[in-house]
């Protein structure tokens, strides 16, 4: 079959914060850059981020990057790579100030500086007291960031391919990356985007879980494409659950609600967090609160007819306070829980929120894989940034506001690396293999020709239920083992999905079937990696790895201080060391310690 070809210096898949920041670097350096996106750029999921972006500007309280680095390493439960973390924390001020120059409307202090607010896990002086490190634009930080970056890209003549869905990564016999295949939704035609450099910035895959704060678009396409092309996925067992998603709907209720005095209660009306975190109570860190809630539910103290959620109570707050200090929360509760929180508590459950793992990269944004004895050998022509990538700065647990920072720092860094490699002549346009589009065409032909197949919706639902039940907040050996088998069965069913409407133009059912292929890779990676990791660390908590003197919080550094690498082919696992050595001599390695707050 004849497939149209387009040639660029670089192709970027994704126009969220990470993709747009990378694109800017390339376009401003004069590279011919194509950005592919499933939806209009400013409708990318980065828009949903409200809390802010971390940077140790020290405008509101004293601060410096050493403290930020310490908090991030500790937050990661020491699974984060200290070279990448040093790099990110050092670069934070620069990328935030840049954004200010691009016109981002940050909140201001009285003397005109960027105002900063406190956020969970961020501290001064190595854990001594909360610090004000989060830079925000009201409760629209991600929105404002994305608009500022988009405008800047328009100015720099970045070429956008809007409503194009990338299908598969193109690699040649050497394993080098030569671009992607993509489908234009308006025509249903497949094209090849041939480029010297390919950057993935496709965001997260939070839709693998039944209960998720993520919008429907977060289907892990980049992660799935990489996995199908033989790139291993790093640390996919680590997913952050946000304690307060509206039960049944998933919509996030911000931490700010507990900050303003909101209280979690079980079926007896008890303020149960007093038992789990006597000091911080309802304001303990996300993983601690999520686990406490899950324990209450598991032990039969959940609320509602199915005893499957707990309640977030703000009825004791003055209605005025709720309206003024917590805008939007009342509307969410009324729409999705059917309760007015001024009068009745909101049903909530721990809800999947953020993917810590992803496509393995180094701090330069290069995708790295084990090769010839080097665990971190760059794949020529391939780069990744943002939630789809694993740099790894978040390790086993991400701190709030560090993700928007990750997008800016590593989006820019990936862009800079591409520009350097391009200008030094290192990047070449290698010839396309004759079969460059065959994998994608075969996937489409299979889907169109399928008879007696499976419904995309049913298989997707089974996947989400399986993940929720078998790889949730708390993990049990028997459930994980069963989960591995079950998700394997779901993956088999996903190979036989069928769609009724075979039309080519704007066929949403086809898009959803193709997205499911990507979600399934992520789900398999998560389940298999989680089953294998026999310790508790950060967001991965097993009931058979409890807190002991030898293994604080169940963490087993002797055996498990290492990154997981999962290969799609054969469901194979490999491991690589965590980089405990910072990038420069400016800072000593942050020594292993028990993670307590």
């Amino acid at each position, binding site marked *: 079959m004849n497939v149209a070809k387009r040639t660029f210096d670089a192709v970027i898949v994704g126009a969220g914060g990470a993709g747009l920041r990378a694109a800017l670097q390339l376009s401003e350096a004069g590279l011919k850059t194509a950005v592919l996106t*499933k*939806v209009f750029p*400013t*409708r*990318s*999921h*980065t*828009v*949903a981020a409200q809390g802010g972006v971390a940077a140790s500007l020290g405008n509101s309280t004293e601060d410096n990057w050493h403290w930020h680095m310490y908090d991030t390493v500790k937050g990661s439960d020491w699974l984060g790579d200290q070279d990448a973390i040093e790099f990110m924390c050092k670069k934070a001020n620069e990328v935030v100030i840049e954004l200010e120059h691009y016109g981002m409307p940050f909140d201001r202090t009285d003397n005109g500086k960027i105002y900063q607010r406190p956020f969970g896990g961020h501290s001064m002086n190595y854990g001594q007291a909360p610090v004000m490190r989060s830079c925000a634009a009201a409760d*629209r930080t991600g*929105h404002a960031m994305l608009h500022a970056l988009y405008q800047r890209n328009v100015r720099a003549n970045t070429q956008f391919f809007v*409503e194009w869905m990338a299908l598969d990564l193109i690699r040649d016999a050497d394993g080098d990356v030569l671009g992607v295949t993509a489908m234009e*939704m*308006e025509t249903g035609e497949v094209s090849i985007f041939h480029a010297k450099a390919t950057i993935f910035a496709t965001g997260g895959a939070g839709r693998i879980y039944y209960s*998720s*704060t*993520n*919008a*429907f*678009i977060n289907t892990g396409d980049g992660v799935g494409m990489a996995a199908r092309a033989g790139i291993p996925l790093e640390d996919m067992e680590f997913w952050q659950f946000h304690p307060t998603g509206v039960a049944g*709907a*998933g*919509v*996030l209720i911000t931490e700010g609600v507990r900050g303003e005095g909101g209280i979690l209660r079980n079926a007896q009306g008890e303020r149960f967090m007093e038992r789990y975190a006597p000091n911080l109570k309802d304001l303990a860190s996300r993983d601690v609160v999520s686990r406490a809630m899950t324990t209450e539910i598991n032990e039969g103290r959940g609320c509602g007819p199915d005893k499957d959620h707990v309640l977030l109570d703000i009825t004791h707050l003055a209605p005025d306070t709720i309206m003024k200090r917590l*805008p*939007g929360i009342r*509307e*969410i509760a*009324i*729409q*999705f829980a059917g309760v007015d929180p001024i009068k009745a508590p909101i049903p909530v459950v721990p809800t999947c929120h953020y993917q810590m793992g992803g496509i393995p990269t180094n701090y330069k944004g290069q995708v790295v894989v084990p090769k010839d004895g080097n665990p971190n050998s760059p794949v020529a022509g391939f780069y990744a940034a943002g939630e789809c990538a694993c740099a790894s700065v978040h390790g086993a647990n991400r701190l709030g506001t560090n993700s928007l920072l990750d997008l800016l720092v590593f989006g820019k860094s990936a862009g800079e690396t591409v520009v350097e490699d391009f200008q030094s002549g290192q990047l070449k346009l290698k010839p396309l293999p004759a079969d460059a589009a065959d994998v994608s065409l075969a996937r489409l032909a299979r889907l169109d020709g399928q008879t007696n197949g499976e419904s995309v919706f049913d298989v997707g639902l089974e996947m989400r239920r399986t993940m929720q039940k078998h790889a949730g907040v708390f993990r049990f050996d028997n459930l994980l083992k069963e989960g591995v088998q079950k998700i394997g069965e779901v993956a088999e069913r996903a190979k036989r999905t069928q769609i009724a409407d075979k*039309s080519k*133009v*704007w*066929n*949403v059912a086809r*898009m959803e079937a193709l997205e499911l292929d990507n979600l399934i890779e992520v789900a398999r990676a998560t389940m298999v990696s989680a089953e294998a990791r026999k310790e508790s660390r950060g967001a991965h908590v097993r009931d058979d790895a409890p807190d002991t003197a030898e293994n604080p919080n169940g963490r087993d550094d002797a055996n498990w201080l290492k990154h997981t690498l999962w290969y799609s082919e054969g469901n194979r696992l490999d491991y690589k060391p965590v980089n405990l050595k910072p990038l420069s001599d400016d800072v000593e390695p942050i020594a292993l310690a028990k993670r307590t707050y």
Partner: protein
Amino acid sequence: MTINRGRVRWQCRRALLELDLVFTRFLERHFDRLTDDQLADLDDLLRCDDYDIWAWVNGSKACENDRWKEMIGLLRQG
């Protein structure tokens, strides 16, 4: 120019989960019955900012464009 229903359906995918949930309900109950004129109004509305649409749907802000009011009504009642 006729409006492609598949395109409009795809563009009901939004950046906020809140709206995805509202639109899921709407797509199930109302979408197939929309007249061409209504579809054009919806198409127009979908160009707006997600936070604006959400504020109109949840009633915290009044929508000032008469053309969109009918669609917002349908989105609200679900």
